[in-house]
């Protein structure tokens, strides 16, 4: 039924079709009552003039029936048809309007879909170009770093060779060579770090995770980085080992503690605190008494090659890679790194506190406890020569 209706609306749609329909209905409105009136007149004439059935009061009957069937009846039919025509025209106009609205809507939808598709295509293209640029950047960094590595080996080797015979050199030449060796080592570290970042971004950096005892590792890092400065280390007793790549965790701690040392004035303390955040994570906080980090610049801290720059003046030396690398490594371990600053009320040294959240090593399956033996086992073992 609906299908037929749609078909009808489609075939009889449009202003011309509506005009044709209205003309036809107008024609019917006049022609039908006139035709019926004519028939009625003819019938009454035949009935009352030529027929012998109603001989009495012929004129009266003829007049009454002609009035009813030849005049009032067609007028009533005319009125009904006029009203019907009016409704029909209104209905047809409404349908036409609806059809126009539908067409407009379809047109609008098609237009918007086209616009959206064009925008999507542009976005995809931009995305492809961005990915390509990113790949090119990574390839470029990797290539440049690789190309730097070989000359660095040569320069470093040449310096080593010269320093082998240092006794024959004047003291200032020796000093300059040692200085150059230090600079080459600095450049080597930079290239190594850039390569590490490019490997990380290319997804080629794979972790070798295992349990890591945090207290000895922290102490080792602090001993190698901090001299002549109080360091307050608080680690809870019986802290379970972390689950991390030991080499990279050490690097992360070196970056964070090294930064704290760099930014804290000589003699001011550094605080390192460890507390379990839950049964699965540990929060390592490193707090310094440095100049702090303004809130509007904190989000720049973790982007590569970013340094807090004020005008032409850089706030510190460095490459702006350490914190970026540390955060990416933390994320690779399913951990987190964030900063809060200021920490202290002191306007001269508001300080910063870095939080490194790292996972705890999974609990091991229960096994015979190597710390407790039964009496029989102790007795059996007492004569064992392998135990000293």
């Amino acid at each position, binding site marked *: 039924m609906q299908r037929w209706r749609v078909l009808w609306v489609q075939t009889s749609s449009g202003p011309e079709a509506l005009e044709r329909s209205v003309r036809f209905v107008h024609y019917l409105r006049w022609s039908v009552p006139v035709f019926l009136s004519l028939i009625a007149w003819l019938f009454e004439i035949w009935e009352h003039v030529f027929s012998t059935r109603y001989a009495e009061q012929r004129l009266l009957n003829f007049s009454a029936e002609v009035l009813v069937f030849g005049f009032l009846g067609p007028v009533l039919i005319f009125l009904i048809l006029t009203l019907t025509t009016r409704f029909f025209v209104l209905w047809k106009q409404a349908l036409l309007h609806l059809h126009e609205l539908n067409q407009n809507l379809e047109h609008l939808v098609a237009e918007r879909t086209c616009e959206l598709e064009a925008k999507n295509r542009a976005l995809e293209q931009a995305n492809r170009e961005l990915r390509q640029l990113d790949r090119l950047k990574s390839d470029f960094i990797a290539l440049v770093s*690789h190309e730097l*590595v*070989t*000359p*660095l*080996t*040569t320069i*470093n*080797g*040449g310096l*080593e*060779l010269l320093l*082998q015979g240092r006794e024959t050199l004047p003291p200032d030449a020796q000093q300059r060579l040692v200085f150059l060796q230090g600079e080459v080592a600095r450049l*080597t570290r930079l*290239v190594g770090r850039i390569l590490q970042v490019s*490997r990380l971004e290319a997804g*080629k950096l*794979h972790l*070798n*995770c*295992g*349990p*890591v*005892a945090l*207290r*000895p590792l922290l102490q080792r890092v602090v001993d190698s980085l901090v001299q002549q400065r109080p360091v307050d280390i608080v680690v809870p*007793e*019986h802290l*379970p*080992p972390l689950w991390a*790549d*030991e*080499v990279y965790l050490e690097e992360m701690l070196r970056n964070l503690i090294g930064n704290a040392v760099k930014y804290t004035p000589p003699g001011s303390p550094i605080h390192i605190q460890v507390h379990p955040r839950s049964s699965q994570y540990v929060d390592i906080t490193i707090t310094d008494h440095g100049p702090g980090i303004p809130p509007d610049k904190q989000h720049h801290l973790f982007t590569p090659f970013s340094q807090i720059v004020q005008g032409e003046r850089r706030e510190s030396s460095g490459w702006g890679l350490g914190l970026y690398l540390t955060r990416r490594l933390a994320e690779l371990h399913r951990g987190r790194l964030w900063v809060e600053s200021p920490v202290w009320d002191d306007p001269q040294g508001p300080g910063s506190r870095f939080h490194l959240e790292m996972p705890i*090593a999974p609990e*091991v*399956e229960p*096994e*015979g*406890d*190597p*710390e*407790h*033996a*039964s009496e029989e*086992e*102790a007795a*059996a*073992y007492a004569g*064992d*020569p*392998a*135990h*000293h």
Partner: protein
Amino acid sequence: MPETLLIIDDDEALVELLESYFTGLGYRVATARNGQEGLERFRAVQPDLVLLDVTMPKMDGWTALRRLRDVSDVPVIMLTVRNEEANILRGFTLGADDYVTKPFSFAELAARVRAVLNRVRHKGQVDAGILQAGDLVVDLATRRVTRRGQLLRLTPTEFKLLVTLMEQPGRVFSPEEIVRKVWGPEYVDEVGYVRRYIWHLRKKIEPDPERPRYIHNQRGFGYYFQVSDAPDEASVTSPPPP
């Protein structure tokens, strides 16, 4: 008679410096600029050790290493800028003896050369730099652990723990002793580390960690290293053989 080194690298400046450095240390040095020339020089000088760069024109280091291994067991140290694990594994699979990543210091390279030559010289004798037990081989110089030739990835502390146990096979170490040797005497109270480390170490080195073959638990006393062919059910209840 001085030992002969063959340096194959396309970086002329580096080769010249290495030649000068190793000549100064008393070695005879031959050089080549690519893999193809390196193979020709190898046939001519018959070196005791080859230092082989990976990225070179004409013939790269991997191909040169394959060709070398077809004709000789000469020790080879790879020199490369790529320190990715896949490359290191590839080098060892093809038969390299060691791997040095650029930029390296000449002193470090010289130490590696000495270690590899020393190992070759004492082949067949007990090598002080190698711990071997069953299929498990620990190279103390390169800090490499392999089982049936497969490289195992241990963390530095896991390596130290394994070496501590392997150096005295059969001897039972208490958790306190292990902590003292691996982390230092100031951490003897932290014996809780040991159980977790041992458990994860077993997962890396044991063919079946549920039935350990190498590291055994002496309940109530500690842990010991011993290669056992039978599954480790007795180790929990009976002491190890002397």
